[in-house]
């Protein structure tokens, strides 16, 4: 029912036809793809303003193709679920089930008839609605009118709600047959404890069953409001047209209030291990701690350091140790999820059940050594070359650019974030990385989650 990122879309579980060899980190959680810096020639000039009712707008003209991408991001992710896990996602998914005078079928046809694409993605920090349309006048008018109506005037039909709820429960069942999904949910639950980040974005069986239409309507009224929204636009249009478009998209939204700040994430006080039995050939292993936030003072040290530790696939220490030297796993990685408050730091892999303990010890060793000693000069230089040299690739499509500028505005990062990224990466030293890791990552206080055929403490 929703256009979820990557592998959570269970309906395409059969996508086995094409096998990627290398797979780095299955980009699972809400791992922000890292923009990488700008050299002088490829900077992106972000234009910004505020709509009449308070939505913040960012815009980059893209004159080459007769199309536009619009991305509306609300601070309405699952961190706002309260005591009803899943309500953010179900609400977002219900918006196109009925809006204005149109029913679900009509809304679908209004987009499909003109080849417009509508998508929804809900993460812990945000609910993002995207529209892609041709810029022909009549086409764009129909697309934007439909999009604006969905965002501001959803009707939440009862019958559709019952169906969406039933299918959401099927989606939850599907997660139970996936050791990777089970591991992720357990990891978040134990990492974040009482914090709103602890619950799954897709909710829990009890909360989905307990949800009522009034909960969805209240959630929409509170969070899907102009003062809680960022509108990002990239496409073939002038500033004036973009301003008109932003007004049209947001004009019917209530001004409302920004969402309050999220509580801080408590660090782990001690090591913890959770084993969950699953009848699978492999054990999925996740090891980590709370990590960092967007705009964190240690952001660049941790980002570049993680690139060397396990963030860059081949050549990173984890991949070399686990896969290249021993053939223990197909995919092995580490990453930070920078969020409004400290998101997860995760190391992960999957390996045959009888190798799980060996792989776990290796992960711990790699991390401990890295925190103790930091990267070598050669590793650091290599990482910098990779990150800065690859900058142009990060912003080579409208699709990439609209996501970056929405992210930058949503998290309140400076508008020259992309332009200064390379310089900030270049400025990092091996000592900075070691210092940041020593202060932030504690190998003696790791959370370890295993899902597979090992022991079961659950």
């Amino acid at each position: 029912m929703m256009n979820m990122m990557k592998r959570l879309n269970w309906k395409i579980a059969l996508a086995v036809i094409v096998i990627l060899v290398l797979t780095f980190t299955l980009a699972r959680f809400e791992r922000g793809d890292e923009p990488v810096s700008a050299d002088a020639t490829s900077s992106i000039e972000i234009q910004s303003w505020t709509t009449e009712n308070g939505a913040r707008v960012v815009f980059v003209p893209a004159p080459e193709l007769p199309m536009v991408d619009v991305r509306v991001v609300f601070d309405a992710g699952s961190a706002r679920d309260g005591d009803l896990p899943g309500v953010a996602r179900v609400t977002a998914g219900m918006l196109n089930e009925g809006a204005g005078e149109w029913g679900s079928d009509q809304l679908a046809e209004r987009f499909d008839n003109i080849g417009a694409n509508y998508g929804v993605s809900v993460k812990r920090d945000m609910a993002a609605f995207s529209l892609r349309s041709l810029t022909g006048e009549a086409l764009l008018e129909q697309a934007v009118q439909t999009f604006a109506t969905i965002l501001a005037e959803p009707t939440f039909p009862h019958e559709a709600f019952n169906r969406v709820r039933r299918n959401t429960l099927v989606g939850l069942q599907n997660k139970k047959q996936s050791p990777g999904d089970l591991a992720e949910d357990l990891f978040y639950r134990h990492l974040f404890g009482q914090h709103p980040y602890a619950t799954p974005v897709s909710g829990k069986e009890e909360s989905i069953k307990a949800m009522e239409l009034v909960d969805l309507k209240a959630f929409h009224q509170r969070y899907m409001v102009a003062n809680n929204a960022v509108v990002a636009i990239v496409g073939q249009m002038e500033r004036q047209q973009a301003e008109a478009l932003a007004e049209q998209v947001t004009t019917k939204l209530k001004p409302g209030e920004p969402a309050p700040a999220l509580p801080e994430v408590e660090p782990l006080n001690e090591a913890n291990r959770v084993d969950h039995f699953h009848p699978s050939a492999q054990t999925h292993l996740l090891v980590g701690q709370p990590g960092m936030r967007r705009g964190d003072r240690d952001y660049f040290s941790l980002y570049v350091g993680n690139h060397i530790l396990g963030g860059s696939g081949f050549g990173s220490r984890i991949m070399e140790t686990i896969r290249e030297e021993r053939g223990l796993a197909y995919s092995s990685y580490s990453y930070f999820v920078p969020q409004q408050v400290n998101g997860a730091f995760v190391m992960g892999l999957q390996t045959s059940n009888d190798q799980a303990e060996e792989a776990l010890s290796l992960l711990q060793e790699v991390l401990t050594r890295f925190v103790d000693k930091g990267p070598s000069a050669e590793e650091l230089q290599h990482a910098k070359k990779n990150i800065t040299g690859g900058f142009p690739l990060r912003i080579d499509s409208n699709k990439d650019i609209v996501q970056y500028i929405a992210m930058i505005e949503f998290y309140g990062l400076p508008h020259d974030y992309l332009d200064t990224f390379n310089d900030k990466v270049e400025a990092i030293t091996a000592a900075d990385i070691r210092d940041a890791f020593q202060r932030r990552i504690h190998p003696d206080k790791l959370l370890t989650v295993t899902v597979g055929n090992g022991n079961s403490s659950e």
Partner: protein
Amino acid sequence: MRRLLILLGLGLFCLPALGQVHEYNLDNGMKLLVREDHRAPVVVSQIWYKIGASYEHTGITGVSHVLEHMMFKGTEKHGPGEFSRIIAENGGRENAFTSKDFTAYFQQLEKSRLAISFELEADRMRNLTLPEEEFDKERQVVIEERKLRTEDNPRALTYEKFNAAAFMVSPYRNPTIGWMNDLKNLTVGDLQRWYHQWYAPNNATLVVVGDVEPDAVYRLARQHFGRLPQVEVPSIKPRVEPPQKGERRVVVQAPAELPYLMIGYHVPVLNTVEQEWEAYALEVMAGILSSGRSARLPSRLVRGQQIAAGADAGYDLYSRQANLFMFSGTPARGHDIAELEQALLDEIEVLKNEPVGEEELERIKAQVVAGDVYEKDSMFYQAMQMGILETVGLGWQTMEVYREKINAVTPQQIQQVAHKYLRKDNRSVTILEPLSLDGQQPAESPKATGH
């Protein structure tokens, strides 16, 4: 699978005005396709080999994919892992993929660094060392990959059994990653033979899209690939699936929470079809059923009757050999596999008995028009389209007539292909029956999932 196929299909084709394809042929038989895209100072380079799982025979299934892994394990000039290291140092991204019909390697780089990619690809096209100890480890990696993708994924497991039942003779019966038995018994000698037979300039297509000048790319390609010798590539015998002659039904029992249904009908593809319009009519039929939220399966089965939690149809217009027209789905709560199957069969009867509405057809065409533009936002996708079409033998020009061919499809033609191919005796059905996840005892009957 299906979602991807629909996307590939409906999206295809590009407006000729924006970036023509430049075709070059090297003396050694290698083909080069270049398309300019000057929106960003980057380039994508892909090399496509005419080799994949559908070229393999029983006993060595998976060899193409394992070899693809080993292509990163060094040549005489560059040791194991060097390839990836050099690309990374240049800010590049790289990877590779294997399917039934092709194996492809790609790099994405800042535009001035294209020569680095050419130098490395030319080197590993003929000079791979295939060290035994690297092979032993990599085979283990692939076994782990198989466990991750297939063994521990009930739907993927079902799909594998489904193909093995639907195809008796066609090589599409084998999984791309290979059967576990074959992976365990694969030797480095198998890889050596495979590599020397198939990795040659005359069995490859190089595709470059980006901020480049076509003639300059051609000169660079000649410089790096031009010296490689032509090799006599084996001719493989056709393995044409005989007529099915009766429905096949297979049950897969595996630890799972949800039942799952797959139905496939043998159909021709563009490469094998006698009357070309049939393939395009099947493509449009897949779109009518499954492209977008307004298509029939989501609007009627998921929303209308609410029998399915999800339902899809799919068709691969561009596969090398005859393939299947696929249906799949998961029942909604309170419904079982039998009801879902009946609902899908009812939709098939509607396709046979009633012409598709004008509005539905127009909607598909509108999506194709929009797709033409949207795809230009991805250089990688454009290169992929050209690579697939060349590699399966259709030629990249096929994408330039896609829109026109889709526009020509009539409601009557869709009815005709539905009648001709969506027949019971031409059908294979596979059902996933969940076993309990904490025991292995049979779970509750699928009917009981509706509490």
